[in-house]
């Protein structure tokens, strides 16, 4: 038993030392990373000497589709592919903490993500801020009963992201990275085929109700902006060949936004022939390629200007 106890204690000590060492190493890499979704984009924005006037936030349908240079004011695309509202709200709390709030936020909303029961797992992409940002720490700890215990390992903050972190770190130190946050999907010859192919799988909404948790995250986002004097304009990118009936949940979402005085530009409902008639502008049913992104960005810039003129 004595031999076993010594073995376990020594192993745990080695594990502790390696874990702390790796945690320290990855922390250092993370802070220096200025590119990619594994914190790089956030770091880049947070270390900009001058905060851009406008910021675009949302998922891949804003990340690959909204070109900041289309707007009249200095704009940064702070979108992250695949991220739901909880991530956007978490990110905003960090921007607030670091005094990096812009004057206006263009928030991309995905109505589907507000209907039915949605996952809160996206907050895991902000694990780096566990213990540093109260809101993010609280949401992370709430993921499961034992979630807090996992953070005993310093390196757990990089769980599932080590390879991306190393790749982005190397990319940052090899290139003099400077960007407006937009990443283009270059048009290719197969775009039309993949878009038509993706039409084979269209699932109707199975749930109608608005997810209260997602709404609360959005509400918290909007309240934080209001508190800091940041104007918010919500928008939704178009989808190729979209003909879904508007669900009860989406109608409620729109009505709540209206009650809060938040402008909402919804391209899902607008007939935009220039986009809907050309499959070559799409990468797939949900994503425009760079050629399509140019059209949507110009359109959004125009509509945002109209909204701002109306509000002022």
């Amino acid at each position, binding site marked *: *038993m004595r*031999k*076993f106890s010594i*073995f376990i204690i*020594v*192993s745990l000590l*080695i*594990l502790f030392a*390696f*874990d702390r060492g*790796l945690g320290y190493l990855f922390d250092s890499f993370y802070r220096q990373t200025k590119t990619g*979704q*594994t914190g790089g984009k956030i770091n880049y924005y947070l270390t900009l000497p001058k905060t851009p006037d406008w910021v675009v936030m949302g998922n891949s349908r804003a990340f690959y589709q909204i070109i900041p240079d289309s707007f009249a004011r200095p704009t940064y695309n702070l979108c992250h592919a*695949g991220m739901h509202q909880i991530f956007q709200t978490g990110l905003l709390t960090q921007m607030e903490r670091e005094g990096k709030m812009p004057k206006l936020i263009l928030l991309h909303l995905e109505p589907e993500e507000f209907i039915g029961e949605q996952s809160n*797992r996206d907050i*895991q992409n902000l694990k780096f801020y566990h213990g540093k940002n109260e809101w993010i720490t609280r949401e992370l700890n709430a*993921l*499961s*009963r*034992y979630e807090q*215990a*996992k953070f005993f*390992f310093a*390196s*757990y903050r*990089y*769980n*599932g*992201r*080590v*390879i*991306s972190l190393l*790749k982005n770190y190397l990319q940052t130190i090899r290139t003099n990275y400077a960007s407006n946050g937009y990443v283009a999907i270059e048009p290719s010859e*197969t775009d039309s*085929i993949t878009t038509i*192919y*993706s039409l*084979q*799988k269209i699932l109707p909404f199975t749930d109608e109700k608005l997810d209260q948790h997602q709404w609360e995250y959005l509400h918290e986002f909007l309240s934080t902006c209001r508190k800091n004097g940041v104007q918010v304009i919500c928008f939704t990118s178009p989808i190729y060949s979209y003909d879904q009936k508007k669900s009860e949940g989406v109608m409620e979402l729109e009505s709540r936004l209206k009650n809060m005085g938040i402008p909402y530009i919804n391209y899902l409902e607008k007939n935009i022939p220039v986009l809907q008639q050309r499959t070559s502008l799409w990468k*797939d049913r949900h994503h425009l390629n760079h050629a399509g992104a140019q059209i949507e960005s110009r359109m959004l810039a125009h509509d945002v200007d109209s909204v701002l003129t109306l509000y002022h």
Partner: protein
Amino acid sequence: MLFNSIQFALFFLVVTIVFFLIPHRFRWIHLLIASCVFYCAFVPIYILILFFTILIDYIAGIYIEDAQGARRKLLLTISLVSNLGVLAFFKYYNFFIENVNALIQTLGLQVHEVPYLNILLPIGLSFHTFQAMSYVIEVYRGNQKAERHLGLYSLYVLFYPQLVAGPIERPQNVLHQFREEKKFDSSEAISGLQQMIWGLFKKVVVADQLAIYVNSIYNNWEVNTGFTLLFATYCFAFQIYCDFSGYSDIALGAARVMGYRLMTNFSLPYFSKSVTEFWRRWHISLSSWLKDYLYISLGGNRLGKWKTYRNLILTMLLGGLWHGASWNFVIWGFLNGIYLSIEKVFDINKIRASSLLFKCGQVFITFHLICLTWIFFRANTFKQAIGILGNMIQPLQFWNLRIQDTGIFAGMTFGFVILIIFEFFFFRKKGEAIFTMSSPTWSAAWLVGFTLLIVLFGVSDGDQFIYFQF
């Protein structure tokens, strides 16, 4: 309570420490209570079903031992019918009704559809039912003495490491171990921990990362190209292997820490040179169960060529049905039965490969034959499986691999490479002995290294084990 949860880690720690602190005569009670707690963490009420079958088999075992002739057979039949009845009710009733209703619809009969049962399948039902049946059959065959101690017999069925997903143990291997006084053995405990951490690595780093990719492709199979679907099927082959063998490793390791030895369930199945060899290396406790109690009972290879093929196909068909109540599992079993029969026809297993290239070719072909069956295993419906196969053979839109998330793809590739390196260079040569032959330095490096890999690459909110549903 999943093996890949912190809850289980705490449970295991407490149970093991208490096990070694209390005298031997109380240990069976301790393990029995712990096993009940473990089972009740899923659906508590279902433990009553287990108690019911335990009691029937316990009494049947004693009476079978004392009985002669037809009475002996009758008692065996009562026990088997009870076990299979519970299994049929919970697992196959809805499947049966579904087919009856489909038949009613097809024939256009003007009768009401038969209602379905709205019940959950008791976790691990197929496993403990087969383990219990194994005991009764062995007593009937005279290979095992009837267990007179109800507590020890209950522990044989309920022993928590193998309760919900095997290995499906034989009474000769386990029952006597519960009587032996287990002294704490430092090297056994370290070996057990090593095996547990290896199993956890396979589950959370390899299987769960592969699962993210496989699920995203299979759930959207209509929009994915042939090559992507083929690649996702390869990934599923390793996902299910790492998921199930990972579970087995944790089970074997957990038992081993307390000094109990359970049977090896996997032995590098994807290095097999034929499907017959594959089934000697894959889910060994089930395949040997099917061979000993079904294939041989049907006559095995003693009744001529054609009946041998029939027995092989029938055995694998029922093996498929054991996995789940769906036609996809039946087809999966049927395909495996066909493979085994064809190999028997051509005496494939007697071919001795001389060159490395030839051996690699055999492994390559076997792997692909097995992958074909995995399509039916993984697909949710027969239509989906056929659709996937259809997309795979479409020449247009074949050469395009969808990677989805590059971070996840890189992570799963990394996990897979580590798995292959360890399996090829270590386990292929030494097997599970790798856990016992190591020095303290190697053991410490193993535990620390794999724990860090789990922390850094493991999917912390991964799925439950695939085989739990069986």
